[in-house]
């Protein structure tokens, strides 16, 4: 009898734990309050962002959450900061699949956002954010699918070449190159004074791939690029031409030795480290680079003094628009079943005041008019100016085409860098991946 009772107790225990496990999956959801009752019911917003390292970025988001709760005491915000790759590749997809996503999470727009929308994961916020979208301008389109808005950016910028003014002066380069001929001449002069002309973090793949993207931007007409993003059609010969131009450029040996194993950022041996510590003269990178260079610089004051920025040079006689630029941004989206307060929080993040504070952290460029005043760094100011002057901003190609085509494309480009790939193979790998 005692045995029987014990077995019974054991089974009961097992069942309780099973229901507990099950409970974990379903719990944590907040009921969406009717729109009229905004801020009436207490709600908890879970917020996943990608600034886990201690620094101005992380501190600023904590302050934003606190300020929002102070304005609206019914809202509690629970932050989880997760490293970008992990967040984008595993955490967000897994959370969305399990039907227990965070309320507010990072969104990079483009192909990935399109897939998430098609699966019905995201909240349509079109009607609530018209003012903000008007303030942000065309950049907001990256977070649109079929004309509907599904997220708002907080950072947006184009990429260009970060360079060391002191080394340029030493090498006798009087003005930043505006054409690839001038860039090649600068490379020759920099080699003569024994510095690495251009640092590239090919080890991480995407920093190398961005060179190809820029050749594609210069070689392809804008409507070919637009069509490629929406239809994943890469038949235009300009995509092969981009690889040929890249190969010719690599053959001039502008990069550091063994670049295939150099990481992009975040450690002193990275391409960032080479530029930040005066061992390389140039690096192709986005607007966030100002902050990441700071992280790896041994002498931050010196870095602030010598660092400059210029747009990617034009290729004379090419089919592309010389004033077009590659860019991208970071934004946030709300899960479909998130409480209505979630959208209010997105609007708060995109408000000029919060954006100005973000600009002051120096970790990236703000997206809203009226936040420019927060930018102090001269290099960032020149990016902001170039961004507003750009005739067309093409989203990073790997983001625009989605991870599957993007990864195949980046792998193919890295193979060109290593000497084993060909321009044709990049395009055929992209086509194969689109059907994979």
């Amino acid at each position: 009898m005692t045995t029987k009772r014990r077995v019974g107790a054991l089974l009961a225990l097992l069942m309780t734990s099973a229901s507990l496990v099950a409970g974990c999956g379903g719990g944590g959801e907040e009921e969406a309050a009717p729109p009229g009752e905004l801020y009436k019911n207490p709600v908890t917003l879970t917020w996943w962002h990608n600034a886990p390292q201690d620094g101005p970025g992380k501190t600023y988001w904590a302050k934003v959450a606190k300020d929002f709760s102070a304005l609206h005491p019914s809202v509690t915000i629970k932050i989880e900061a997760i490293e970008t790759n992990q967040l984008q590749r595993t955490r967000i997809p897994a959370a969305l699949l399990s039907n227990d996503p965070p309320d507010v999470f990072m969104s990079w727009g483009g192909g990935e956002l399109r897939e998430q929308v098609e699966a019905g994961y995201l909240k349509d916020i079109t009607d609530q954010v018209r003012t903000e979208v008007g303030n942000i301008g065309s950049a907001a389109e990256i977070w649109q699918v079929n004309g509907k808005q599904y997220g708002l950016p907080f950072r947006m910028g184009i990429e260009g070449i970060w360079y060391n003014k002191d080394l340029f002066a030493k090498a006798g380069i009087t003005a930043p190159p505006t054409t690839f001929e001038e860039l090649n001449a600068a490379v020759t002069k920099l080699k003569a004074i024994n510095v690495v002309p251009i640092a590239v973090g090919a080890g991480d793949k995407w920093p190398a791939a961005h060179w190809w993207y820029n050749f594609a931007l210069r070689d392809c007409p804008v409507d070919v690029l637009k069509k490629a993003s929406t239809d994943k059609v890469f038949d235009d010969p300009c995509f092969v031409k981009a690889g040929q131009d890249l190969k010719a450029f690599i053959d001039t040996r502008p990069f550091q030795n063994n670049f295939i194993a150099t990481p992009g950022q975040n450690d002193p041996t990275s391409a960032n480290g080479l530029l930040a510590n005066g061992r390389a003269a140039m690096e192709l990178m986005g607007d966030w680079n100002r902050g990441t260079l700071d992280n790896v610089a041994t002498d931050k004051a010196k870095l602030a003094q010598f660092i400059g920025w210029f747009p990617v040079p034009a290729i004379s006689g090419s089919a592309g628009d010389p004033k077009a630029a590659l860019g991208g941004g970071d934004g946030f989206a709300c899960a479909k079943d998130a409480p209505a307060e979630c959208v209010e929080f997105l609007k708060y993040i995109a408000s000029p005041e919060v954006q100005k504070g973000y600009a002051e952290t120096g970790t990236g460029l703000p997206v809203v008019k009226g936040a420019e005043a927060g930018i102090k760094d001269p290099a960032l100011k020149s990016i902001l100016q170039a961004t507003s002057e750009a005739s067309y901003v093409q989203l990073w190609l790997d983001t625009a085409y989605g991870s599957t085509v993007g990864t195949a494309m980046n792998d193919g480009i890295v193979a060109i860098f290593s000497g084993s790939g060909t321009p044709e193979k990049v395009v055929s790998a992209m086509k194969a991946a689109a059907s994979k």
Partner: protein
Amino acid sequence: MTSANQTRNPAGGVATPPAARRPAAPASSRRAETRRKWYEIIGLTTPALAVYVMFVLVPMGFAVYYSLFRWRGVGPPTEYVGLRNYVLAFGDPIFLDALRNNAIIVAGSLLIQGPLALGIALLLNRHFRGRALFRLLAFVPYVLAEVTVGIMWKLLLTDGGTVDALLRSVGLGGLVRAWLADLDVVIWTLLFVLTWKYVGFAIILLLAGLSNVPQELTEAAAIDGAGWWQTQRHVTLPLLGPTIRIWMFLSMIGALQVFDVVWVTSVPAVRSLGASGTMATYMVDNGFFARLWGYGNAVAVILFVISFVAALLFQRFILRRDIEGAITGRANRP
């Protein structure tokens, strides 16, 4: 068998004597006893079985199921493609490179770590001052977290890093290579790091095995006039057999599934070129980073089948005498 009712077996542990005959009990109470025994078995194994089913068998079933779909991990899988993902995997040269790299790591682990660990274990089994310290040092790399080891070696092996400086300072500058960037060298660099990391595990296992070699046998060999080397060769080694075979088994399975050290030490670009990736890193690169979830599951299933078949073959042909009775049942008993 000796006449004693206890006998030491070479793998360590003591064989239990056959249970003494109990006086015959009435049939009803014997049935009650049987029933109680079954309750105990069910009660004690259910939690373990439940966990095993939930976290091993069910996910394995899901992996097989998902591997039959073209699925990007957004929404439920709907596009059934049969075995297409498996065909694609074996048609991808980078996956075949990963298979080759795994084979190199399996062979390298067995052929390099085995003799090395055996030599060190035999040395550390002798009595000398500071033996405990040396044993500790030999084991430290194994205790370190994989990621720590990966980052440490990545920094040491970087271009113009500590390893290069060390080689140059002793006049071996000619040996300096681009350890992590040269596509022909990087797999051997990884093999070196893996050996450094895991040789301590082999050493500890072998030391445990050595402590089970009865002193009497080595003494007897010494009395018969055997030298140290002869004793090791003809007495110690044969008795170490079971330990060595178990280590080979664990090492082989570990080498087939190796992920962490490779992931951290080798950079994504070099992996994507096929120079350093293993099946496990290929699975993550494609499953998560290229977001080919169905395809990634197919790779996971391939990795599982290869490991499973390797384990079965190893048990069938090499571990057979060590596990006889435990798994093979009573059929072979006299």
